């Protein structure tokens, strides 16, 4: 293998050591610690009261919306990063010149529209301000 792969070998060693440390301390604890299970101990922790409902329930869909927005804006950042690294060279006349700036602004601008849209629709509002924001009120009137 060529020398360009050497950093990756070092990274694999790091990951193996890191996972090894994490697993070792957990296993060591399992070996050293006592095992005295009791019914009260094994029950779910609910501040001492009995559990009235299962944690295997459906959750609010807005968490899912946040996850999708995250994927979109994360991918935006990942597209911007190679452009940013090459940006100074792109500004040279033989590549794009000042046009590089406009290319970048157009990309960010389109996504800024997306952010502005979800913001205006109230998808970024959570419990407290959803009750007071104008978007939520106009929704309620519909």
């Amino acid at each position, binding site marked *: 293998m060529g020398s360009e792969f050497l950093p990756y070998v070092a*990274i694999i060693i790091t990951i193996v050591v*890191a996972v090894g440390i994490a697993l070792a301390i957990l296993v060591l604890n399992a070996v050293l610690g006592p095992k*005295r299970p009791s019914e009260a101990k094994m*029950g779910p922790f609910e501040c001492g009261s009995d559990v009235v409902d299962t*944690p295997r329930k459906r959750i609010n869909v807005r968490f899912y919306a946040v*996850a999708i927005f995250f994927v979109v804006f994360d991918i935006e950042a990942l597209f*911007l990063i190679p452009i940013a*690294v090459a940006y100074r060279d792109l500004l040279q006349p033989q590549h794009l010149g*000042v046009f590089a700036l406009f290319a970048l602004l157009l990309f960010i601008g389109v996504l800024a529209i997306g952010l502005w849209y979800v913001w205006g629709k109230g998808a*970024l509002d959570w419990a407290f301000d959803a009750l007071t924001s104008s978007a939520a009120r106009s929704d309620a009137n519909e």
Partner: protein
Amino acid sequence: MDWMFMLIALLKVLVVLVVFVLMLGAVLTWVERRMSALIQDRLGPNRAQIGNVRAWGLLHPIADMFKAFTKEDFVPAGANRMLFFLAPAIALASTLACFAVIPFGPGEHFTIAPLDSGMLFIIAIGSFGIYGVALGGWASNNNFGLLGALRGAAQLVSYEVTMGLNLVGVFAVFGTMSLSQLVLGQGELLWGWLPKWGVVVQPVGFVLFLIASMAENKRAPFDLPEGESEIIGYFAEFSAMRFATFFLTEFVEIVLIAAIAATVFFGGWQIPWLDPQGVAGGFITVAQIGFFVFKIIALCWLQMLIRWTLPRFRYDQLMNLGWKVLLPLSLANIVVTAIVLALS
């Protein structure tokens, strides 16, 4: 394959992870308790002693370690055993592995893996920490755990967006995202006297990075996923070393944030206004590594101070800050940086 290379790499990994990071993390658990005590006009932990030596409570991390190792690591009934075991391991291992690309000194010898896209590697591996939170809370079959896991995961993804975007500005200024190249780029002086550190050319970027990374670390004022005073954290069901692993991860992450901030925004191992020609070769390297470690410790201290100064956010405030303040600001930061670079 070169066995010598692998042996040296292993040695470097052990020195960085065990001798430096985990030790500093353990000391930070003491700093945390001692500093909070001093801020709140208490004495803090000072009882652990060997013989007559108390060392201002410095023995407490050692005592804590023995305690965590010898406690019962029970798994609640109905919990998913595999994920319950894996979650803390994922959290700690993914944080530790990020140190592979941090340049501790000049040249390739002081980096475990000098990767071309070092900063992206940290974002990539660091994002595995979300699984520690989400799977850990879900696997414990506990309502509080699930709630903490959901809040935690949503918080982490929200601030990761800002994290990625605000580094774009730094990459554009220095034209690289290799951490060692970034440090070299920060060695110059602006107008002959001001070090060209990331914090100087990207002040907004640094503030955004610090806020976003502290939110990523789930510590006050962003500690809603664990909420230690309300106990609805994703690790509500975790005990003994499983809990201690999550706890330690938090402190390792403080060191990681400090290391990234020192590398990207504070010149890494560069000592400003010092002409390397004037000092003997070996000594200057030691001084540079020492200065880097000093920067890390100073930034750890800064994070501790912020953590014990600010009260916790409410959940809607947290999400508002992430999506309505930090995200637009980081986009604006990119635009301003791009315009300034195009004009100059």
